[in-house]
């Protein structure tokens, strides 16, 4: 390998030498990449972030502790005597015992002292304080495949250091922006590959070490060596699109590793669907992860049993097509169940949905003040058209313009304008919108009274119309810039959408205006231009060919949206809670499934009750039991006729012993009674499940 190039572009060093030990490779790549020259000026604490998302010991399970300790020795040799290893893990692993920050490193081979007697600390890396405060930050990732991201390398490894945990992709981006590593190393001496990714990692000697000052570039090279698109991981893709790659140069070989097996795209897709769910996705990690039970025992008995059933399939996924497809099918079934749960919550129980805390991904300061100021004027042509459109009976004005829906609606709230604008902040107008489920706001510019003038927002709304969730519709996720105007007698906010992180919207521009009426009341006007992406099912046919179907759907959706928004404004004015959903931390999302089943039982009970009212259940019971007629109630218990002074009870002579027909009748009568009571039994069961879940939630809250 050549010595370090003097070229100013970023260089990624890919050092591979079969037969060389990991320590030798590490020494060579550090020397060749100019690592030591680069860090020589840095003095102070050093923090190394290895990949500790490991569930067993072994050189392939995570970053090899021997390599990390060798790096510590090398740092000591060059005068760095305050070195710590940060333990923070990306995967949620609270379903296991022994996952405390100090326990995991020790159980996978870290000894707090190098073979040459240099002591090092293991620090809790969660929150990123130790990482951010370090004079030298080194990411030391493992070269490995990942169940749904396809690969998990430097960027993935950094996500665990985010100050606030949201999604892996957002966390990683936050760390890269806030405290990027000074150097990134990727341990590919013994890599982990295979169709099941990190769920069932398989060792493969790849004799490689990668070093680069840029995490994205290091991953770019490592992904290339896996034979993968470097953008295939959503985690890396988000960061690459947000930050971009620097001009770069590759020193070393980028050809794919021989014998390397990536996660099959079908497997990754199925796992991604499963992991996307709040409930089962979080819960099922315990069932799909191969674990060294000697080191990390599962906390929950049932999860342990399920884990013992599923993980052998994962381990054989590469060799056995049946096992592979069974795992895929299992993923899809779990995802589908969770899809039903979410659909049920979106449609019938919005307060059970979790609110989202999604950070702004764009840079709000990248737009000039003039760009913000131009938003209002940019909407003027649409506004002019809207004002000329006739209003439907419900007040809605709408028209298609370039495939998007231009709409506007207005209403006078019987609330005094002056008090209304004191209580209802126009800058929060989007948060008052119907079905707003979360997001983030960054104020860019304020007026002299500290009120927002220019701001950027990320908004998440439920699927519109809500029933789109049944067809796989995504939550609408858009990033906007906004301009707020406060004039005498009128306040307005206008927004323009710059991007949609999940591709759910192409256009979502619009605004809200609060205007004082002649009577001093509040006139509310909501207007916009929207074009949302349709679920795949809806792309199979062109709904524009059936305007008789399309138009009522549109009008109903926008009327519901407007009415919901007005209701929220009224609630905000009254100082009441107007947001849907619950706080992310308010309840364990893993209990979504039993909640759903309980709700389903209650719904079925209601359905059956209707049938019972019409006598339908009796007819069904009669049909099932073959009697053809509704059935008599169960016989009453025999009552004593007399009790004598000695306490003996005297009964009427018993009826003759029932013949076969008699016993059948009794059974049939009992069955009919059961059918008749089925709705109450189901309702009771649903209530019991809810009680248990409430009790668990209360217990959790107390803890």
């Amino acid at each position: 390998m050549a010595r370090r190039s003097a070229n100013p572009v970023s260089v990624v060093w890919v050092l591979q030498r079969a037969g060389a030990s990991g320590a030798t490779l590490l020494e060579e790549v550090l020397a060749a990449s100019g690592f030591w020259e680069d860090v020589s000026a840095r003095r102070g604490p050093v923090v190394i972030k290895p990949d500790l998302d490991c569930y067993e010991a072994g050189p392939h399970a995570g970053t090899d502790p021997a390599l990390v300790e060798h790096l510590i020795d090398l740092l000591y040799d060059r005068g760095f005597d305050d070195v710590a290893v940060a333990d923070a893990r990306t995967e949620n692993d609270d379903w296991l015992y022994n996952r405390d920050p100090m326990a995991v490193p020790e159980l996978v081979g870290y000894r707090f002292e190098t073979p040459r007697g240099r002591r090092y600390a293991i620090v809790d890396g969660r929150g990123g304080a130790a990482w951010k405060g370090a004079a030298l930050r080194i990411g030391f990732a493992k070269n490995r495949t990942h169940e749904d991201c396809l690969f998990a390398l430097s960027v993935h490894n950094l996500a665990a250091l985010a100050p606030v945990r949201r999604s892996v992709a957002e966390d990683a981006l936050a760390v890269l922006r806030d405290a990027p590593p000074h150097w990134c190393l990727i341990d590919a001496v013994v890599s982990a590959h295979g169709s099941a990714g990190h769920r069932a990692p398989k060792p493969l000697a790849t004799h490689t070490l990668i070093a680069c000052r840029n995490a994205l570039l290091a991953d770019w090279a490592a992904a290339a060596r896996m034979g993968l698109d470097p953008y295939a991981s959503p985690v890396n893709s988000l960061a690459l699109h947000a930050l971009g790659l620097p001009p770069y140069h590759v020193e070393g070989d980028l050809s794919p590793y021989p014998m390397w097996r990536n996660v099959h795209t079908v497997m990754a897709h199925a796992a991604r669907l499963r992991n996307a769910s709040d409930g089962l996705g979080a819960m099922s990690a315990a069932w799909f992860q191969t674990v060294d039970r000697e080191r990390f025992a599962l906390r929950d008995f049932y999860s342990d049993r399920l884990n013992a059933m599923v993980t052998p399939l994962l381990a054989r996924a590469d060799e056995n097509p049946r096992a592979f497809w069974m795992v895929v099918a299992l993923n899809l079934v779990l995802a589908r169940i969770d899809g039903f749960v979410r659909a049920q919550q979106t449609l019938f129980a919005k307060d059970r949905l979790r609110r989202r805390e999604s950070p702004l991904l764009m840079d709000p300061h990248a737009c000039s003040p003039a760009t913000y100021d131009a938003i209002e004027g940019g909407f003027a042509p649409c506004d002019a058209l809207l004002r000329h459109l006739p209003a439907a009976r419900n007040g809605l004005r709408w028209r298609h313009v370039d495939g998007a829906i231009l709409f506007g609606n207005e209403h006078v709230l019987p609330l005094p304008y002056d008090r209304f604008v004191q209580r209802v902040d126009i800058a929060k107008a989007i948060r008052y919108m119907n079905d707003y489920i979360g997001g983030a706001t960054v104020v860019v510019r304020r007026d002299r009274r500290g009120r927002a003038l220019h701001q950027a927002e990320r908004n998440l709304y439920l699927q519109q119309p809500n029933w789109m969730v049944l067809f796989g519709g995504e939550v609408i996720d858009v990033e906007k810039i906004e301009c707020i105007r406060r004039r005498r007698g009128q306040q307005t906010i206008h927004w323009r959408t710059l991007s949609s992180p999940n591709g759910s919207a192409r256009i979502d521009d619009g605004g809200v205006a609060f205007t004082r009426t002649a009577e001093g009341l509040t006139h509310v006007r909501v207007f916009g231009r929207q074009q949302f992406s349709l679920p795949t099912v809806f792309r199979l046919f062109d709904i524009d060919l059936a305007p008789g179907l399309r138009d009522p759907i549109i009008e109903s959706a926008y009327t519901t949206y407007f009415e919901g928004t007005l209701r929220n404004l009224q609630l905000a004015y009254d100082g009441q809670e107007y947001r849907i959903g619950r706080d992310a931390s308010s309840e364990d999302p893993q209990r979504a499934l039993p909640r759903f089943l309980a709700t389903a039982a209650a719904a079925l009970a209601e359905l059956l009750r209707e049938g019972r009212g019409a006598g339908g259940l009796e007819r069904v019971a009669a049909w099932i039991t073959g009697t053809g007629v509704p059935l008599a109630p169960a016989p009453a218990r025999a009552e004593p006729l007399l009790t004598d002074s000695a306490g003996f009870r005297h009964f009427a002579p018993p009826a003759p012993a029932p013949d076969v027909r008699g016993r059948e009748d009794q059974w049939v009568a009992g069955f009919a009674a059961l059918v008749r009571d089925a709705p109450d039994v189901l309702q009771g069961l649903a209530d019991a499940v809810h009680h248990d879940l409430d009790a668990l939630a209360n217990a959790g809250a107390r803890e």
Partner: protein
Amino acid sequence: MRALVTGATGIVGAHVVRALLEGGHAVRVLVRPGSDRRALAQLDVETCEGDVLDTASVERAARRCEWLFHAAAVFAYTGISVEAQTDLAVRGTRQVLQAAHRAGMARVVVTSSSVTLGSTATPQLLDEDAVFAEPQPSNYTLSKVQQEAAAFDTGRRLGLDVVSVCPTMVVGAHDYRLGPSNGNLVNYLNDPLRCTFPGGCNVVAAQDVGAAQVVAALRGIPGQRYVAGGDNLRWEALHAMVSELAGTFGPSLRLNHTAAYLAAASMEATARLAGRRPVVTRDEARMACRFYWYRHARLSSLGWQPRPAREALAIALAWLLHRGEVAESVAARLRPLPEVQAARA
């Protein structure tokens, strides 16, 4: 004083009779023809046959009595229709009170139930001022709520002094029909898994409930209700105490709401198909998962004090074991503590 007692063959009524006799009062009992009178055996009481739903028979029995203790009710969660249970509770109470009015009685003590105060999902103490807000009341609970309302309403209308005593879970002897309270102890001991529940209850000895009624008659304020309750215990603690007293293991398994409900539902279903009475009902399962915990400060202020739950349970167990209510195969393996054997004596 001469007192008329209805429902005297039941566990509460039988102990009211005993308390009255101990206080030196003369007692007349109204019993249905052919009813099981073992609870009154060898007691110095005047017996009148009749029915609380038969006005004439109640009026006959009420003549020359100063006090009326109305304890007649059907304490059951199954085997009786809601209409019949409510009718007996409401119409029976109204008729009894009217008869008491005609007879010029000074005071009526109605045996209500602590369930009329409601219950809570979490451990909280309720008292007589609690507002009934039970989410899923059983038929029995509803009948008692309506009975109490009818009693106070009729009393007000007739200008009759009515006080209501609300016993909690009454355990003890002379329960020849084996009501749900003593039945719970029997079911627990007969259960091979020795299951317990997440809720809690308040245990009171039947003797203390009898004494409470007399105290309420002597010193109670008209229109008031009085909780006759003892110690508040979680089911787990109560069952552990029962196990200890009976000299056996348990509780072994704590059911949650869902498991308790499913178990009760399947027992009900099986019993229905077989045409017999279920051992446990869904109503009871629901109740076992809530807290029926109460204060008895109001009755204490009148000078009444209940005995500890342990003593109440010992007395009940002594009687239940002696009666052979516990399955023979189970009873053979029990080693009751001396305090249980002493209670039997």
